[in-house]
C-alpha cells in the first residue's frame, strides 16, 4: 500500500476492484465502513462476482474477468476527454509534459519496436527525448504532440464507454455511473482510494493493470494524499516483508542480484545507480552504492573490504537472459534439471498453477526439505495418487517416486518473536511466551543448524566453492539459534566506527563503515531500542498516521509520496487533509517523502525517481509504456481492439511437460478462483473453526447456466479445463451475472480454493485447472480468467 489501512477512512471514494476486502481483509474493511459512516464516502465495487464487498457497496458493476484494463482505460479516456482530472497536479507531479522520442506509437496491438521473430520489443522509441544537457525535455503546457499527456490522450481515445461495455460486459450506463463516482476525486479537495489484491495481480497483464490504476490515481491527484493511493491488500501476514527481503532476482531492499556481465562492484553500481533525468530530481536511488555496500558488509563482515569489492564476488551472478522464477524453475524441475527443493512454509502443490505439473516436478527431485506447521500436499505429494487419484490420475504410485522427503516440525507465529510487515508497511514486533509443541523447533534454529551443518561438512571434507559459504557471516551470540533481536539489529544497521545502531538509511555509507541488512528497514532498531514494538496511541495529524505505533518503512513514513499532497509551492491541495506542512524551515506532520529541510520548490516531488515526478508513461515495463487491454491467454472472445494480438504478446506462456492451453469451443466458460472469508489459503483446512464454517468445496454456477444445464444447488458438477478437472456440489446463484460480450453471453464459473487432499477437510485443488501462464513483469500466474467446461455428473 502506498497509504495504509487506517488511512482508508480518509477517502471520499473507494474503488474496490481486483480485491474483495469484506471477505479477504474483513478487519481492514472496517476503514471502508468508517469512511462511509463518517465522510459519506461512496464504495464502488467492480468484480465479476457479486461478493460480500458488493453486497454493501453503493454501486456494484460486474465485469468479465481479465478486462480491468479496458475499464480503467475507459476511466482515463473519460477523465481526459471531459476535463475531470486534477490539471495542476498532473502538470506539477507527473511526467505528463515529458517529450517522447520521435517514432513512438501503437498500432494493431503492438507498440513500436515489436520484433515478431524474437517476440520482444526494441524499446528505443519508448524513451524520453533528452536535451543537450542530458535532461529530459518537458513541455509544461502539455500541448506538444509528443508529450506524454497527448500520447496518453491519443492512446485511450479508443476506450469509449461503448467499447468498455463491449469488452467488459457491464452496460454503458453502469460504466458511466461508476466513472461519475470515481472521477469525483479529481477535485483537489476530494480523495479517492483504490483497494486491490490478487484479483488484479493474477493476470497475464497484471503489472500493466496496476500501472493503469496508478495512472487513474495520478490523474485524480490522489497519490500522496490521505484517503488516496494505490493500495495492495496483501494476502499473507508477511508477504510484504518477505518481498522486501528479496526475490529470485532481488537482494534485500530491492537491490538487484547482479547479472553475469557485471563482473565487478563498480560495474554493478554503475549499471544500477540511476542518473537524474531532470535538474531538480533528487534521484534517491542515486544512493544505491551506500545501500549495497552496507548489505555486503552485513553479509560478509570484516572479510568485506574495499580491496575485495566488499565481497561482491561471493554473491551469485545470474546468467544474462536466465530466469529463475517460479514459472521457469518448475519447468526445469520437470526436465530433471533440479536436484532438490527447500520449502519454508510454502505449499506449491496447492498454490502453483497446473497441479499435475507441480506433482510431476516434485517427483523428479532427488530430495525435498519442508519446514512446516502442518503436513501439506507438498510434503505428502507422493500420496496424491493414493488419496485423490480421481483428480491426479497422472501422479505416480508412491513406490515409483524416488524423492527423499524431510518434513520438519517448525513453529507457528505465537511461538516466535520477530516482525511481520502488514500491507500498510508497518513492521509490527511480536512477543512470545510459548514453546513449539513436542519436538518442533523454532525456524531460526532449524535453518541455522542446517546451515552450520553444511558448512561443517565443507570444512571437514572440502568441496566445490566453499568460500561463498564460509564467508557468509553467521556469527550470532548463539549461532545455532540466533536471537531475532540480534538479527533485526543487523538488519536495521550500525555504524562500525562508533559501534552504535544507525538511526536511518541517511547514515549509511559506501566506504564499508556501516552495516545494514536491508536499507529500507534502516532505523527500525536505532540506539533507543526496538521501534517496531511501540504501542503509542497519539495521532497528532488526526489522519490515522499513528507515528509512534510500530514502525513503518521507509523511515517511519506512513503515506508514500506525501510530498505530492502539496503543490510545488508548498500549499496543500486540501487544507483539511494535509499530511505534511512546510513551516518555512522544516516539514511537519508525516515523515516527509522529501528532504526534511528542503524548500518546497527545491526538488521534484517524487524523490525516488530520476524524473523527480511520477510516471504516467513507464518505459521500464516489458509490454509497453502505456497499459493496453489484452485478453487472458485463454479467453472466450477475441480482443475487440486488435483481434490479431489478442493476449499480452510478452506474457510467459510455458509450454513444457504437462502444459496445454484450451480454446472456447471446448471450454466455453470463464473460470475464476478465489478465497472465501471463512478460510485462509490452504492452512485453515487444518483448523476446526474454519473447517466448520465452510466444510465443503463447491462450485458457484450462474442461475441461467444452471437452468440451461438442468443443474440444481447441491447437484454434483464437474469442471474441466485443458489441464484437469475438479468435482463438487453446485451452488447456483444470481450473484454471477451472465455478461453480454460482443453480442454473446459469457458465463463465469466460481471456484473457491481452500481444499486439498491433506487436512481436516478434503476437496480438489483448484489449480488442477489453471495454466502455466504468467505476467511477464512479476511472474504471477493467471488464476483469474481461464477457460473451463461445466457438466452435471
Amino acid at each position, binding site marked *: 500500500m502506498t497509504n495504509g489501512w487506517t488511512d482508508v477512512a480518509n477517502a471520499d471514494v473507494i474503488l474496490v476492484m481486483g480485491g474483495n476486502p469484506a471477505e479477504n481483509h474483513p478487519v481492514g474493511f*472496517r476503514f471502508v465502513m468508517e469512511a462511509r459512516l463518517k465522510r459519506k464516502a461512496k464504495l464502488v465495487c467492480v468484480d465479476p462476482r457479486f461478493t460480500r464487498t458488493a453486497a454493501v457497496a453503493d454501486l456494484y458493476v460486474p465485469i468479465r474477468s481479465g478486462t480491468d484494463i479496458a475499464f480503467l482505460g475507459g476511466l482515463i479516456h473519460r477523465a481526459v476527454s471531459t476535463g475531470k482530472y486534477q490539471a495542476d497536479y498532473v502538470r506539477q507531479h507527473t511526467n505528463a509534459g515529458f517529450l517522447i522520442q520521435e517514432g513512438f506509437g501503437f498500432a494493431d496491438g503492438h507498440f513500436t519496436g515489436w520484433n515478431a521473430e524474437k517476440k520482444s520489443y526494441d524499446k528505443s522509441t519508448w524513451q524520453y527525448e533528452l536535451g543537450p544537457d542530458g535532461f529530459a525535455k518537458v513541455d509544461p503546457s502539455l500541448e506538444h504532440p509528443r508529450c506524454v499527456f497527448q500520447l496518453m490522450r491519443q492512446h485511450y481515445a479508443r476506450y469509449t464507454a461503448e467499447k468498455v461495455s463491449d469488452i467488459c460486459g457491464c452496460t454503458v450506463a453502469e460504466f458511466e455511473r461508476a466513472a461519475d463516482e470515481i472521477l469525483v476525486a479529481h477535485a483537489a479537495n476530494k480523495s479517492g482510494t483504490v483497494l486491490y489484491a490478487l484479483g488484479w495481480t493474477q493476470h497475464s497483464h497484471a503489472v500493466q493493470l496496476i500501472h493503469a490504476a496508478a495512472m487513474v490515481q495520478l490523474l485524480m491527484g490522489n497519490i500522496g494524499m490521505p484517503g488516496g493511493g494505490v493500495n495492495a491488500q496483501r494476502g499473507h501476514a508477511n508477504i510484504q516483508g518477505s518481498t522486501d527481503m528479496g526475490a529470485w532476482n532481488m537482494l534485500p531492499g530491492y537491490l538487484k542480484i547482479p547479472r553475469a556481465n557485471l563482473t565487478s562492484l563498480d560495474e554493478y553500481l554503475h549499471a544500477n545507480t540511476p542518473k537524474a533525468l531532470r535538474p531538480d530530481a533528487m534521484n534517491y536511488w542515486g544512493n544505491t552504492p551506500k545501500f549495497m555496500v552496507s548489505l555486503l558488509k552485513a553479509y560478509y563482515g570484516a572479510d568485506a573490504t574495499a580491496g575485495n569489492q566488499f565481497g561482491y564476488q561471493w554473491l551469485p551472478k545470474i546468467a544474462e537472459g536466465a530466469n529463475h522464477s517460479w514459472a521457469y524453475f518448475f519447468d526445469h524441475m520437470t526436465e530433471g534439471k533440479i536436484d532438490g527443493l527447500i520449502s519454508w512454509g510454502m505449499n506449491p502443490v496447492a498454490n502453483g498453477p497446473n497441479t499435475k505439473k507441480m506433482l510431476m516436478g516434485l517427483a523428479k527431485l532427488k530430495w525435498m526439505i519442508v519446514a512446516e506447521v502442518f503436513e501439506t500436499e507438498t510434503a505428502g505429494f507422493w500420496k496424491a495418487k493414493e488419496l485423490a487419484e480421481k483428480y491426479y490420475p497422472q501422479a505416480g504410485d508412491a513406490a515409483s517416486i524416488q524423492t527423499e522427503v524431510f518434513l520438519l516440525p517448525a513453529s507457528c507465529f505465537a511461538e516466535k518473536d520477530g516482525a511481520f510487515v502488514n500491507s500498510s508497511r508497518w513492521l509490527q514486533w511480536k512477543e512470545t511466551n510459548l514453546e513449539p509443541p513436542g519436538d518442533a523447533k523454532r525456524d531460526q534454529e532449524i535453518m541455522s543448524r542446517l546451515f552450520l551443518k553444511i558448512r561443517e561438512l565443507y570444512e571437514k571434507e572440502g568441496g566445490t566453492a566453499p568460500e561463498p559459504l564460509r564467508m557468509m557471516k553467521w556469527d550470532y551470540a548463539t549461532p545455532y539459534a540466533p536471537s531475532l533481536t540480534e538479527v533485526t539489529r543487523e538488519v536495521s544497521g550500525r555504524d562500525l566506527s562508533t559501534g552504535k545502531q544507525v538511526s536511518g538509511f541517511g547514515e549509511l555509507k559506501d566506504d564499508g563503515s556501516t552495516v545494514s541488512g536491508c536499507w529500507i528497514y534502516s532505523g527500525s532498531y536505532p540506539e533507543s531500542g526496538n521501534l517496531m514494538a511501540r504501542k503509542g496511541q497519539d495521532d497528532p495529524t488526526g489522519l490515522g498516521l499513528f507515528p509512534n505505533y510500530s514502525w513503518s518503512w521507509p523511515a517511519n513514513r506512513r503515506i508514500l509520496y506525501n510530498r505530492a499532497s502539496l503543490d510545488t509551492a508548498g500549499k496543500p491541495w486540501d487544507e483539511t487533509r494535509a499530511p505534511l506542512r512546510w513551516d518555512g524551515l522544516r516539514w511537519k506532520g508525516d515523515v516527509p517523502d522529501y528532504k526534511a529541510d528542503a524548500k518546497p520548490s527545491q526538488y521534484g516531488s517524487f524523490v525516488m525517481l530520476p524524473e523527480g515526478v511520477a510516471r504516467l508513461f513507464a518505459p521500464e515495463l516489458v509490454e509497453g509504456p502505456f497499459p493496453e487491454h489484452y485478453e487472458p491467454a485463454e479467453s472466450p472472445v477475441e480482443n475487440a481492439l486488435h483481434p490479431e494480438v489478442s493476449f499480452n504478446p510478452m506474457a510467459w506462456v510455458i509450454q513444457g511437460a504437462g502444459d496445454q492451453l484450451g480454446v472456447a469451443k471446448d471450454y466455453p466458460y470463464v473460470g475464476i478462483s478465489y478465497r472465501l472469508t471463512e478460510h485462509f489459503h490452504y492452512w485453515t483446512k487444518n483448523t476446526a473453526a474454519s473447517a466448520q464454517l465452510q*466444510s465443503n468445496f463447491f462450485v458457484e454456477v450462474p442461475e441461467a447456466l444452471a437452468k440451461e444445464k438442468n443443474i440444481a444447488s447441491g447437484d454434483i458438477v464437474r469442471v474441466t479445463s485443458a489441464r484437469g478437472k475438479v468435482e463438487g456440489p453446485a*451452488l447456483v446463484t*444470481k450473484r454471477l451475472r451472465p455478461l453480454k460480450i460482443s453480442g454473446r453471453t459469457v458465463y463465469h464459473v466460481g471456484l473457491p480454493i481452500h481444499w486439498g487432499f491433506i487436512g481436516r477437510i478434503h476437496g480438489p485443488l483448484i489449480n488442477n485447472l489453471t495454466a502455466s501462464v504468467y505476467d511477464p513483469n512479476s511472474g504471477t500466474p493467471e488464476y483469474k480468467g481461464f477457460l473451463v467446461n461445466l457438466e452435471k455428473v
Partner: protein
Amino acid sequence: MTQTVVKLIDTTLCIGCKACEVACQEWNDQEFTLGTFGGTYQTMPDLAPNFWNLIKFNERETDGGLSWLMSKYQCMHCGDPGCLRACPAPGAIVQAKNGIVDFVSDHCIGCGYCITGCPFDVPRLLPESKKVYKCTLCSDRVAVGLEPACIKSCPTNCLTFGERTEMLRVAETRAGVLKQDGHAQAGVYNPVGVGGTNVLYVLKDASDPAAYGLPADPTIPLSVRLWKGPVKWLGTMLFAGGVLGSFFHYLKFGPKEEEAPEE
C-alpha cells in the same frame, strides 16, 4: 443500580464475515463440527446446541437490483422472555437485572418447554446431555466489565454494546441517518410483544423484518402465557416427577426472576 445492557445490530454494516459466530463458540468453548453443503454461504442451516449465533444469507432480486442480506440470528434477551415463562425447572433460566436471559445447565431438566415458549425459535436441545443451550450474552464477560465475545470481534461496528437507553438513542439516530439517505422505511426493531428486546436491530426496511429473518410481531404463545401462574406449577408437578426437590425450591423461592447483587 445495575443497568440494562443491549446488543445493537446495525444490519447495514454486516459483511457476513462470521467473526461473531466463531467468537461465540471459541469463548464459550463450544465444539466445532463439520457441516454438510446446504447450497448457501451459511455455516449451518440453523442454530444448534453448540452454535448460538448464526449469520443468515439471503439472496434477493428486487427492482433495485440484486441484494444479499446478511443477518445475525441469536437469542434476543427479551424483556418478557417466553422461555422463562415456560420453564418448569427452578433456576434453569434466569433473567438478570442487567437484562441478560441466561440458561443454567445444572438446573436444566431438558423438557424443551423453553423452545415452545420462545417466539424467536432460539433455544436448542442437545439430546446427549438433555440440556438446552443458547446465547448467554457472555454473562461471564459482562460480569467483569467486558463486552460479549461477538461484539468485541465484529470488525465493521455492525455489533455494538452498551446501556439500553443510550443504545436505543444510538439506534434511533442511525435509523434517522438512513432515512435521510433515502431509506424511508429505516427503523429500529425492538418488538413490544415480548416486552422489548435487549438485542436491537437497525433495519434499512423496518416494514419488512421477515426479509432479515425476524418475525414481524413476535408474541409469547398463548399456551405459554396460560402456563404462567397456578397452572404452571401444576404442570411442573405433572412433568417433574424426579425433580421434586426443584419443585420445592420453586415453592420456597418463588418466581425465578433473579435479582442481581448490587455492586
